[in-house]
């Protein structure tokens, strides 16, 4: 019971992070119909920006945790969204109007490029940061097992909930959100109404990168270590989350993220921690085989 509660907390934390990254996949897919395989690496880059920023702040003698967090979030979001913009501008936009496969291959190339760039400039070794947010609450004790909720977990869940609420509001209520949805439904028509479609696509990439950046900062605070390869695994899991929830659906991405996080946590606790990735990828295969439109997605209808 206590273990289950602990894994619920851990799973929700992990799921929140996957959900944040998954939104980037799902938004980009929704608007231009491609899987941005470099998105996981955008997240990885944001984690490195966070590490650098934390290190610089520590060197500058800033000890206030909330201040440090706010500054690092701001810096990481700023730089990472520029990365998101640049990736779209250089690797995908020139290929618009070519075959569906071309941007996909370009995305894989971009992913390899980002990994290698970080490996070369930052080194291949795991980079640690001094603990930023230590401590937590012991909320429950049974059979000699204490259920622990750390401050960093609280931070992750609270920030994610706030961000997703804000995001949902923006997409459903604001003028930009409307234009974004219009592009998803009929890009040509949106252009005919006087909207600069390329700008909306750029902003979509930047927003996806923004959420990934927040995820990167949160994970850095949570685990305290990063390496150039974290984007690959986290990216594929978030992609699985997006597919599970229904690619193109934003609530689906959040739901999928939480489910993948929970499945992973419970699988690791009760079955085998070594095979938790197998569980995730089995889900990906099963969903693709039996319910390709995911839990909340619309079935793909061929336009004729």
């Amino acid at each position, binding site marked *: 019971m206590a273990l289950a509660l602990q894994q619920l907390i851990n799973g929700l934390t992990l799921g929140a992070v996957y959900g944040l990254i998954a939104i980037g996949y799902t938004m980009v897919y929704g608007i231009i119909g491609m899987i941005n395989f470099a998105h996981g690496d955008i997240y990885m880059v944001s984690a490195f920006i966070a590490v650098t920023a934390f290190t610089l702040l520590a060197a500058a003698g800033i000890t206030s945790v909330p201040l440090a967090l706010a500054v690092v979030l701001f810096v990481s979001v700023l730089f990472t969204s520029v990365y998101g913009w640049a990736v779209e501008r250089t690797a995908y936009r020139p290929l618009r109007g070519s075959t569906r496969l071309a941007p996909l291959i370009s995305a894989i190339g971009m992913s390899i490029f980002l990994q290698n760039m970080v490996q070369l400039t930052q080194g291949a070794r795991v980079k640690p940061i001094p603990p930023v947010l230590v401590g937590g609450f012991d909320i429950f004790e049974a059979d000699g097992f204490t259920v622990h909720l750390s401050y960093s977990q609280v931070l992750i869940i609270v920030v994610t909930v706030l961000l997703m609420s804000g995001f949902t509001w923006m997409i459903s209520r604001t*003028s930009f959100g*409307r*234009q974004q*949805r*219009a592009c998803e*439904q*009929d890009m*040509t*028509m*949106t*252009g*005919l*109404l*006087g*909207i*600069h*479609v390329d700008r909306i696509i750029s902003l979509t990439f930047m927003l996806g990168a923004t959420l990934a950046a927040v995820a990167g900062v949160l994970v850095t605070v949570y685990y305290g270590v990063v390496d150039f390869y974290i984007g690959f695994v986290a990216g594929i899991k978030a992609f699985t989350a997006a597919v599970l929830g229904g690619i193109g659906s934003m609530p689906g991405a959040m739901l999928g993220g939480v489910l993948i996080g929970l499945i992973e946590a419970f699988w690791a606790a009760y079955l085998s921690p070594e095979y938790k990735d197998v569980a995730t990828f089995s889900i990906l295969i099963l969903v693709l085989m039996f319910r390709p439109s995911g839990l909340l997605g619309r079935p793909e209808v061929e336009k004729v």
Partner: protein
Amino acid sequence: MMLELSGVHAHYGAISALRSIDLSVQVGEVVTLIGANGAGKSTLMMSLFGKPRASAGRIVFDGEDITGLPAHEVARRGIALVPEGRRIFPRMTVMENLQMGAVLADPLNFEADLKRMFALFPILDERRQQRAGTLSGGEQQMLAIARALMARPKLLLLDEPSLGLAPLMIRRIFQVIRELNRDHGMTVLLVEQNAHHALRVAHRGYVLQHGRIVLSGSGRELLASAEVRAAYLEGGQPAGRRAE
């Protein structure tokens, strides 16, 4: 002169879709473009927005050369299109569709323009919170027209607004076109297969065949022309339309 095309050519790959098109629309006019399926009518409309881009010739709108401008820039200069197949945003509400149409307009005009649209098409008022994809064909057509008008365009392009609609609805749509032109001075370029209705509402018309303009004249002249009658009004009329 509101719109003037001179010597416009356009291609889809190697296939020539428009050949040496000369066409003009004066301020306050309703001009119609009739022709059979595949004659290039929709291509001509879309070529104004650079889709496909004119490979030769010039398109001048309101004194400015707009040849080769991207679609959103053309729209910003005051051309609104009600496209073939309506292309309303199906997963948005009626209201959201109208807001999308008003992106280019001054937000201060929004409420007043909305009121005008609901006066023109009362059914849209009743359905304002309904998803546009659930509307009937005729209602979607009204929404598409209202969405275009929300931008307060100088030139309204209508691409086959009567396609697939019930006779009563077709009459209503043409009545609206006439009202817009007569009471609000709206300049209209209308593409139609329904030559009979189109020529009666239009001041002037052009006949397009295989991407070429083969005939032009006033609506009345074209209605009376033997060629037009043979090709688009009698023999050439698809089954089902004759009864109107």
